[in-house]
């Protein structure tokens, strides 16, 4: 741990020292071996829609920078992020491919996800400033704010709620006001039929 904090010292000064240390400790504890799979349910609140979009399926970290997002409801779709490219396959359609470079939000999501699942605080601190709130084991929240000034203009912050060494919720707040909330693990089954922002935040932080 000492070695760890020494090597990380250039990044550490963005957040309060003791806060950063506990955050790092937490991230290290979250690590698990790849491949790691978890069910998820996502609600997206977008300005252009008058009700949230809800989808669910399974998220898999295949190790390295490879992430798979399989949608089961309401339609089937498989998206893979690998080697800087996103591939999207939908039944009966040509696969769509695009670069991660063109989707900075995805890059942020990938960075946070891979660092969390890999238990790699160094990587996480490279991309984000980290704050931890709620120090007790029953509930904690990690707030990640992108360091890249360009990225922060689209993704304001990512909040990860969890309990013990289990992340339960990932909330991505976009700068234009849009919000995506992903319920992870056992919480995925508890996505309400008509979710609201407040309801989901309460679910993430409380229940």
């Amino acid at each position: 741990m000492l070695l760890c904090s020494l090597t990380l010292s250039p990044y550490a000064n963005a957040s309060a020292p003791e806060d950063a240390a506990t955050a790092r400790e937490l991230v290290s504890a979250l690590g698990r071996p790849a491949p790691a799979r978890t069910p998820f349910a996502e609600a997206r609140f977008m300005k252009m829609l008058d009700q949230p979009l809800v989808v669910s399926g399974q998220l898999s970290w295949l190790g390295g920078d490879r992430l798979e997002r399989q949608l089961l409801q309401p339609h089937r779709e498989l998206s893979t992020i690998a080697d800087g490219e996103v591939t999207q396959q939908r039944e009966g359609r040509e696969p769509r491919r695009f670069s991660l470079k063109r989707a900075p939000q995805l890059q942020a999501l990938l960075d946070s996800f891979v660092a969390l699942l890999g238990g790699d605080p160094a990587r996480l601190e490279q991309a984000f400033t980290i704050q931890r709130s709620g120090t007790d084991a029953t509930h904690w929240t990690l707030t990640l704010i992108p360091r890249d000034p360009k990225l922060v203009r689209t993704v304001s912050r990512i909040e990860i709620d969890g309990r013990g060494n289990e992340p339960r919720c990932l909330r991505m707040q976009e700068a234009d006001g849009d919000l995506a909330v992903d319920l992870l693990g056992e919480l995925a089954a508890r996505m309400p039929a008509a979710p609201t922002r407040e309801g989901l935040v309460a679910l993430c932080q409380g229940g």
Partner: protein
Amino acid sequence: MRRGGRWFLLLGWLALLAVLAVVVVQRLRVSTDLRSFMPAPSTADQRLLMEQVGEGPGSRLLLLAIGGAPDDALATLSQGLVQSLRHDTRYTQVLNGSFDMAALDDTLLPYRYLLSPTLDQQRLDAPFLRDQLEQRLEDLSSPAASLLKGLLPRDPTLEVLQLAQRWTPATSPELREGVWFSAQGEALLVVQTRAAGFDPGAQADAVAGIQRAFDALPARAGATLAFSGPGYFSVVANAQTRGQAEWIGRVSTVGFILLLLLAYRSVASLLLSALPIASAALAGMLALIVLYPQVHGITLAFGFTLLGVAQEYPIRVLSHRRAGEDAVQSVRDLWPLLLTAIMSACIAYLAFYASGVNGLRQLAVFTVVGLLVAGFSTRYLLPYLLPTHVRDVAHMPWLVTARRWVDALPRPRWLPLFVALATVVMLVAAQPPFWQNDLSALTPLPRDLLQRDARLRAALGAPDVRYLLVLQAPSQQDVLRLSEALETSATALQARHVVDAIELPSRYLPSDAVQRARQQALPDRAALERALADAEQGLPFQPGLFAPFVNDVEQARGLPLLEPARVEGSPLGQRLAAMLQQRDGRWLGLGTVSGVHDVAALQQWAQAQGDAVRVLDLKAAAESLVVDYRARILQALWVATVLLVLTITLSLRSLRRAWHVLAPMTLATFLVLAVERIAGVEISLFHLVALILAAGLGLHYALFFERDTGDLNEQRRTLHATLVCVLSALLVFGMLAWSSIPVLRAIGLTVSLGVAFHFCLSILMAPHARQD
């Protein structure tokens, strides 16, 4: 001349040269466009070639590869390079595979409904919109959401993406990190230059601009930029040739100076004898400046080569001086012969003027003016400056021995006949082809450059520079309609793997008829709003979200149909300008062809489409142009030969004497040709030019050897002068013969061989030493 007068003359001459030099430096505009050195095209294909060489869409492409760093760094560099080149007016198109909205700027966006084929099969009705909106909803819950979010209100059917897809090359390389990558892991880019592909000067500027932009990019540690493409090749070939020519030129200049010092043992003589040549070069350039707005680079290069003949004039004067005799007197004695030599060289070079090719005409003007100035300044200025006391070369012991040895050589009467027979035998026996028609064979590129080009071209699906699809019709609209009619069978051709891709003009600009049909298929505002409302039933889109879409459609309904003039200057406009051209009241559509696998099948397909469609083989057209070119030079040479015979005969006032001068020269010229042919050399234009130079030099040798003075000393001086001339020519051109660049080798080898043969034959066939 008094001492003061001599200084006055020297300073005056130098001052005049300095003024000339200033004028030349300030006013000379050198053009590097190879086309101005080509003959006027006579067939339709040749004419198209002249426009396409350099102007065609294929030949203006530079292919770039960035390597030597990790993928993400290369992708960032690729994007950075595109950013910095996009607003540079030297480049009309910069592509790296990333989705390019800039092809249609904001004001043109409503045109997407007239340009995209969607409306050919679909109507913007409720069921279609419903399907599209459902798909967009799925998109919004996918990782692509952030990509499409911004487009959605204005373009819910993603017409912009349709167009982008339609306009990306059919076979495009792998996308990594959003940009094109080769299988070797280099980021790939395609840049279209405004400059013509075969204008090495302008291309060098374009290449340097890209390199500078690349060097200015941040964080490019270790990454390297590699170029390919016709324009780059012309730059490389130019630099290569110039580099070697300069290097060889420096070495041979030093050798030449040493040789003259050795021959005349006088620095003053050496320096002064440079004045006529310098005057010749400057006067020649001045004449070009006066007569032509631009002077071709090749004119100057060839011109300086051909002006080599003029070196002889001061050398003759220096060698023929007698001990204690005034230089003016020596020159007076020499002048009639020298004048004949000058006039005959002028006549030979004047032949270039008759060729009708602009570059060659310039060459004629330059050399003729140069020779006259060199000759007359040697006669009327130089002798007044030369030191009064010189060593008479006639009494040098080695020269006496050499002359004796030369006089003792056997001179069989059958020699000319034997040489002529041998020449004919060699010419007949040599392996065909006689002529080298492929100009590119003369400036070959390093093998690895060509391999890289093939690799990048294949990876990028860049159009072939050799084949071009030409559509011809009375009007632009006819061309576009024809192009549309071809689309189906062209696609079939691709499916049969005859070619990898054919890109037709209608891909970028549909005909008015098609645009109008699409326009008429667009619903009016009320109908669209109704359809949209129906489609949105039960979907969570905010009411009024698609107002920008409705506005665009409404605007598209009232737009004047898109024509090239409206997009002028934009990337789309540039593409169209390259693909649609008006000529002689008719319109041409130029389609590019990529990856030709079966030329015969391609030709057959084009023939089946009728007269209006044909495949132009630019290489074949170029070769036919070279053949025409050569025919003109040969014709001009015949004229020159006749004039030469007349001049020599008249000035020598004797057919027999003329024969003694012309026979060795003619025989030696053909002997060079025969020896080169039997050695497997195919004769190019450059060989012909070199043969003419050698013949000019040979004529001098023969003229001087023929001069029957009966004065032993004068004969020795003639031998001395000729030896100095021969050695200096061999020094300069012998060096060129070792060059690795075929153009330089062709000139060097031909002139060296020529000088040697002319020298030997004119000695052996000289009349005076014969014992009869």
